[in-house]
């Protein structure tokens, strides 16, 4: 059998539905006259699984799975990895250090820009954003261990 795009899409939603349903044991469905906290989620999960099954059944009309272009995948993974690392230390290191690192990581490590221009860009833009949000708009930004 040729695996099609909607085979994977449909199956993924059925699995998600089944997983969420298994986590819904503690939510009472209630009765029609007195609906419980579990009624809406369980109805929606049932609908999701039903639509997933329809998608799966009609998957033969969708393009082959191999036809999906993944040439942007390395870019996406690098971007997510750098951003996730920065989010993880955002509260601890504070706005200025984290955002400088984020911008430097994306311009130097992902985009391979010259180190000096990447560094100047990162520090300059972070300084501008700090001035705009913290100083001008008085928005509370995370201060971190070094108080900025």
């Amino acid at each position, binding site marked *: 059998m040729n695996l099609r*795009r*909607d085979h994977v*899409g449909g199956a993924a*939603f059925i699995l*998600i539905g089944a997983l*969420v349903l298994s*986590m819904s044991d*503690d*939510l*009472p469905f209630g*009765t*029609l*006259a*007195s*609906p*419980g*906290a*579990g*009624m*809406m*989620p369980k109805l*929606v*999960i049932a*609908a*999701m699984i039903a*639509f*997933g099954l*329809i*998608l799966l059944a*009609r998957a033969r009309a*969708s393009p082959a799975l191999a036809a*999906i272009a*993944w*040439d*942007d995948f390395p*870019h*996406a993974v690098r*971007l*997510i990895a750098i*951003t*996730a690392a920065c*989010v993880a230390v*955002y*509260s601890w290191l504070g706005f200025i250090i984290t*955002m400088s690192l*984020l*911008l430097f990581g*994306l*311009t130097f490590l992902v*985009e391979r*820009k010259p180190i000096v221009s990447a560094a100047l860009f990162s520090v300059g*833009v*972070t300084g501008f*954003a700090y001035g705009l*949000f913290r100083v001008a*708009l008085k*928005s*509370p*930004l*995370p201060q971190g261990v070094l108080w900025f």
Partner: protein
Amino acid sequence: MEATLDSLALGFSVAFRPDVLLYAFLGCMVGTLVGILPGIGPLAGISILLPVTFGLDATKAIVMLAGIYYGSQYGGSTTSILMRIPGEAASVMTCIDGYAMAQKGRAGAALSIAAVGSFVAGTFGVVMLTLVAPPLAGLALRFGPPEYTALLVLGLVLLAYMSSTSLVPTLLMAAAGLLLGCIGIDVMSGHFRYSFDIKELGDGIGIVPVAVGLFGLGEILSTPSGTVTQKVVSPRLRELLPNSNEWRLSALPIARGSVLGFFVGIVPGSAHIIASFLSYAVEKRVSRTPEAFGHGAVAGVAGPESANNSASTGAFVPMLALGLPTGPVTAVLMAALLIHGIPPGPQLVSEHPDVFWGFIASMYVGNLMLLALNLPLVGLFVSVLRIPYAYLYPLIVMFCIIGVYEVSHAIVDVWIMLIMGAVGYLLRKFDFDPAPLVLGLVIAPTFELSLRQSLVMSGGDWLIFFQRPIAVTLLALCAGLLALAVVALLRKDWRGRLARAQAGGEEA
């Protein structure tokens, strides 16, 4: 009518306040930039800038955010005409003939026609909004929980019917959004649902992290800098005026696009995208020279540009009058009003007339501002397009993080945005439209509450939805649309053509 004019006068007294004018101007300016820059649509732009409005009062906040929305419809045409890259999705159709006109040395004329068409259509849309929204809100005051349940079901069905992708994936996405909307404390019983002992999830998942992740970050993840073309045709100021023949050829398409766009805009779904597609198809059908389409036809720019602007104004009718979002952008605008303590819906006109009429009046002013901004400053906007994308997208990622964090100062929201960015990337790969997911998330609390209230009211009798005239009419409409959708599934219709045009910008 007299009461409407009096209320509009109140609105203008609010809209002409210097501080409100300033925020309308800022919204229009930022919206134009958002529309111009490929990769940031109006939704991402509004979501990112939503936290900036927290310190403002509700009128200024909504005036600025709406300015970003309709400003982006103006700005989207610039990249379409000069670079053949749609700045935002509704400008796809403008790429075809707009870029062809630019190749013939008529870039300035195409930009002028797009700007004037957008102005006429935007103003027509606001006039219609002024006339239609208040009586509709009056009718909606008679709605109880069963009517609201039926209305929200109709909204979801309309969304699925009008979506550019097929029916099943759209409903699947809406169901996923409704399920996400169930996270948090159940308001009727106090149960914690799917919050995994994370206290921030007790309040549910916010719209902003989901919208910014799916649309802002998701777009950036699937756009490596190597794929972004930055060859820009820059028109000179003296080349901006169309000749008399071009004006003549654009007059009727602008009029048709304005009317068509407004009525399509009222319907939930990707209205402004569908409106521009339908307008292009209509213009090609009524043209005496259909063979000119795809090779620089003036009507191919004037019609779609007018239609998408009129549709973006039409989308405000159900939002303001019924409290029903017709798409993710209006959903985020509704969230902005709620954050400021103002529930959109039928009570908005009577309880907050300054916000309602001030907002409408500011749209008249905003359309004038956009006309004044877009033509003389086209050179400035074009220069923004010369910023290398390799430097631009890190900046956008930073603003996404700041914007999401500023909503509730919770790092959990930033993680949700990042996860949603990855989800948005995968959804694009598997050809799922993320917009219904955001809509499902927005309407989930109201939908659940009105459904459960209806059942409690009737002692568990489902027939309550068929015993009330408004509810049964709305449900009959749902049944009719579902039947039409099933027929459409069996044959190729406009959705397929729209999807192909969005994918490749090819001739419809």
